[in-house]
């Protein structure tokens, strides 16, 4: 390296040239951006103001995509210039730590897909479905505005700051930049939040598979399929990932079709008809086994399937919405947004809309991916905007599509599917009666309709299939069967949707358990170093068992909850995820202040303040509200008093045992709320303190890795600009000269 190659082109486009090119507004450019702005504005006008009898779903696509484009072109570039200030002459960890394994300079477009597959899962599909009870408009605004000013900013900043630190994790960054107290609080918060998120994701799967022989059969077939793929890759054709993924995908489709056949055979159907508690235990056992098995056998192959499905489904869904252009059934804003007594989840629009839709607008969990895996793969600093900010925009679009799927199905069916069993009694008659008694304008559902939908999708019943996944599956099947296959394929598409949601979630459960175990053993390693030895089986199995027991207990609690698990637990999921986002933003705030970006700090302060207010206020309501449907402890007290008064049934609990369960569950849920909010407040407070110190001192000590000169070049965005292309050509020439010189 000592002999500097004089002829080597620079590693970055001259910033002045770049500014000049980007600042030049040609007539074509003005026309294009004018058209995007107009189309987006038209979309918003149609959604928010015209509304009309029935809004066409295509307007959601226009409003969303045009908003994203404008935000990406203007706001993210503003954030880049004022706050991030990337420098392409600096080498990224993928260059200076290159090891051919986890530090690998990766093509930006491939990394975009890779990062998207790592951040997006079932979350953005479930939250918007539940939030549809407030009408389509609040959710749409929050998903789009939230991602632009909060979610995408968080992902971008965490990715960049972690990249400048060699790919350090969020916990390590907290320890270094916030100090001991803030660091420990951040790590404990991350760990407990991961547990709750894993539990509630598992609950979504269990709810989707309960009493569904078709679903249980096809989802359980993913295990032998993955095992086969694992063995194939290890012993038969090592490294033939693409080939085995295609084989696996075909087998997966066969498993869905076979599931339909199984559910038609009474004897077989009986075997695969399991109640939710049994399925929950199966998921727990599965979670433990999957997390202690070697990666190559189950996790890696299923991850391939999951990624394959993820990209495929997103593309398919987008095509379906654009081609089918369904009309919206839900109102713009429902009464439940104001009254807060909707059957899907309790609470008013503020703050509960903002915690119900976490993924898709702002997701704290992403901070764990954006620090760690992705930053080690980034080729050039300026690409972080495309990958971090742009990747999150894509997840937001997935959330919009999920919302569209939920609001284009009949509202009566929507409420019959999402009301707790205690409200509907689990029968079509009970459900129809309950839904019609809600007094919603234009909503009238008959038991026959509910039964015929169930028949169409190949299920016994669709009543009280809470958790969001079955509703999304009905919405998707309604859309996709109009695109491919007609009504004959309706049940296939329903179970296709259930299958991919289960696949995403099981992968998240497995990976989440592993990461949580790793964090636990790493922390225990401070006291007892042997826990850091990954080959020590006792330690690995023991810490896995602890983590599985933790989320398993919450899962069982949710499944057996007399009040309907999703109803009470989903707000906790959203609050946990958003608190993690607040923690991540707080860490970014301190880092940015230490870098001296005082005037641009509002870029972080605005979303941080918003999410802090939302989650802390939401937590306070969950902890202190005297409305039993909202406050965990109010519910707890109401049931306690009833029990002490000698009553044997109360509210939705029909038996004394159920009453005890409610008392126990609300106590646990309330305590978790307290824990989360206290930990988050500690982190945020430390961060504010450190930020003020840094602002006063005009900056602070940098925790970045030392600067290394970069010797490679690649453009920053999806499409290379003219100056970028010119530099790329210089590099291509240089490389061919080098080869010629060597030869």
């Amino acid at each position, binding site marked *: 390296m000592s002999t500097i190659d004089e002829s080597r082109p620079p590693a970055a486009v001259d910033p002045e040239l770049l500014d000049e090119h980007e600042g030049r507004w040609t007539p074509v450019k003005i026309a294009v951006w004018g058209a995007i702005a107009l189309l987006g504005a038209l979309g918003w006008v149609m959604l928010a103001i015209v509304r009309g009898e029935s809004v066409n779903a295509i307007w959601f696509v226009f409003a969303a995509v045009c908003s994203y484009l404008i935000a990406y072109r203007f706001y993210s570039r503003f954030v880049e210039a004022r706050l991030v200030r990337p420098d392409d002459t600096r080498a990224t960890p993928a260059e200076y730590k*290159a*090891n*051919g*394994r*986890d530090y*690998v300079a*990766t*093509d930006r*477009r*491939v*990394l975009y*897909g*890779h990062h998207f*597959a*790592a*951040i*997006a*899962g*079932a*979350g953005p599909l479930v939250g918007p479905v539940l939030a549809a009870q407030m009408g389509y408009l609040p959710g749409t605004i929050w998903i789009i505005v939230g991602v632009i000013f909060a979610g995408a900013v968080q992902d971008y900043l965490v990715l960049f700051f972690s990249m400048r630190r060699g790919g350090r994790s969020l916990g390590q960054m907290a320890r270094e930049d916030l100090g001991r107290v803030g660091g420990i609080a951040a790590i404990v918060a991350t760990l407990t939040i991961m547990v709750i*998120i894993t539990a509630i*994701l598992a609950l979504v799967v269990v709810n989707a598979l309960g009493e569904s022989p078709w679903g249980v059969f096809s989802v359980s077939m993913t295990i032998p399929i993955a095992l086969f793929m694992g063995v194939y*890759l*290890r012993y038969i054709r*090592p*490294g033939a*990932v*693409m080939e085995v*993924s295609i084989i696996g995908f075909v087998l997966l489709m066969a498993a869905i079709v076979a599931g339909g056949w199984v559910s038609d055979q009474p004897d077989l159907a009986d075997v695969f008809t399991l109640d939710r508690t049994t399925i929950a235990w199966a998921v727990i056992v599965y979670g433990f086994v999957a997390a202690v098995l*070697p*990666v*190559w056998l189950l*996790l*890696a192959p299923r*991850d*391939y399937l*999951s*990624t*394959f499905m993820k*990209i495929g489904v997103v593309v398919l869904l987008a095509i379906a919405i654009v081609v089918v252009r369904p009309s919206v059934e839900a109102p713009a804003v429902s009464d439940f947004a104001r009254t807060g007594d909707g059957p899907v989840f309790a609470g008013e629009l503020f703050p509960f809309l903002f915690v119900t839709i976490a*993924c898709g607008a702002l*997701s704290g*969990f*992403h901070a*764990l*991916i954006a620090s*760690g*895996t992705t930053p080690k793969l980034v080729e050039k600093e300026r690409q972080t905007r495309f990958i971090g900010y742009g990747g999150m925009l894509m997840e937001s679009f997935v959330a919009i599509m999920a919302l569209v799927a939920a609001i284009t199905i009949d509202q009566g069916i929507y409420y019959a599917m999402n009301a707790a069993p205690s409200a509907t009694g689990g029968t079509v008659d009970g459900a129809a009666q309950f839904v019609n008694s809600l007094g919603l304008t234009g909503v009238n559902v008959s038991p026959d309709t509910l039964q015929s939908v169930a028949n169409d999708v190949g299920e016994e019943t669709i009543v009280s299939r809470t958790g969001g996944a079955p509703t999304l599956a009905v919405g998707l099947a309604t859309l996709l069967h109009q695109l491919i296959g007609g009504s004959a394929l309706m049940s296939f598409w329903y179970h296709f949707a259930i299958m991919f949601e289960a696949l995403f979630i099981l*992968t*998240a459960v*497995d*990976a*989440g358990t*592993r*990461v949580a*175990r*790793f964090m636990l053993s790493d922390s225990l390693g401070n006291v007892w170093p042997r826990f850091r030895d*990954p080959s020590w089986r006792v330690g690995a199995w023991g810490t896995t068992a602890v983590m599985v027991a933790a989320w398993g207990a919450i899962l069982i609690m949710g499944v057996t909850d007399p009040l309907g698990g999703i109803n009470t637990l989903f707000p906790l999921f959203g609050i946990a*995820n958003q608190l993690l986002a607040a923690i991540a933003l707080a860490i970014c705030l301190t880092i940015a202040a230490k870098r001296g970006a005082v005037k641009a700090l509002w870029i972080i302060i605005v979303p941080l303040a918003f999410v802090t207010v939302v989650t802390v206020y939401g937590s306070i309501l969950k902890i202190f509200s005297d409305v039993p449907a909202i406050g965990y402890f109010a519910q707890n007290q109401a049931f306690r008093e009833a029990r002490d008064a000698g009553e044997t049934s109360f509210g939705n609990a029909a038996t004394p045992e159920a009453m005890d369960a409610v008392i126990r569950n609300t106590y646990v849920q309330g305590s978790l709320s307290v824990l989360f909010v206290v930990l988050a407040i500690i982190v945020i407070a430390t961060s504010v303190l450190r930020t003020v110190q840094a602002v006063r001192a005009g900056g602070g000590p940098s925790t970045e890795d030392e600067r290394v000169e970069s010797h490679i070049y690649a453009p920053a965005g999806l499409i290379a600009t003219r100056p970028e292309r010119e530099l790329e050509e210089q590099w291509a020439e240089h490389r061919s000269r080098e080869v010629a010189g060597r030869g």
Partner: protein
Amino acid sequence: MVERVRAVGAFMRGVLGADRYEHYLEHHRAHGCGEPMSRREFWRDYHRWQDENPQGRCC
């Protein structure tokens, strides 16, 4: 057309991580010494590393 299909294929390979071994070889050519690992050895080594360094997947 054929080129397009090939580009999509290469993109999916990258996203899935199917081209890890090729990346490793490239890295080894540039920085490594001695014989590179075979495809089979590389994947075994990679999976062992993954076992010891779990990577998160999001919700």
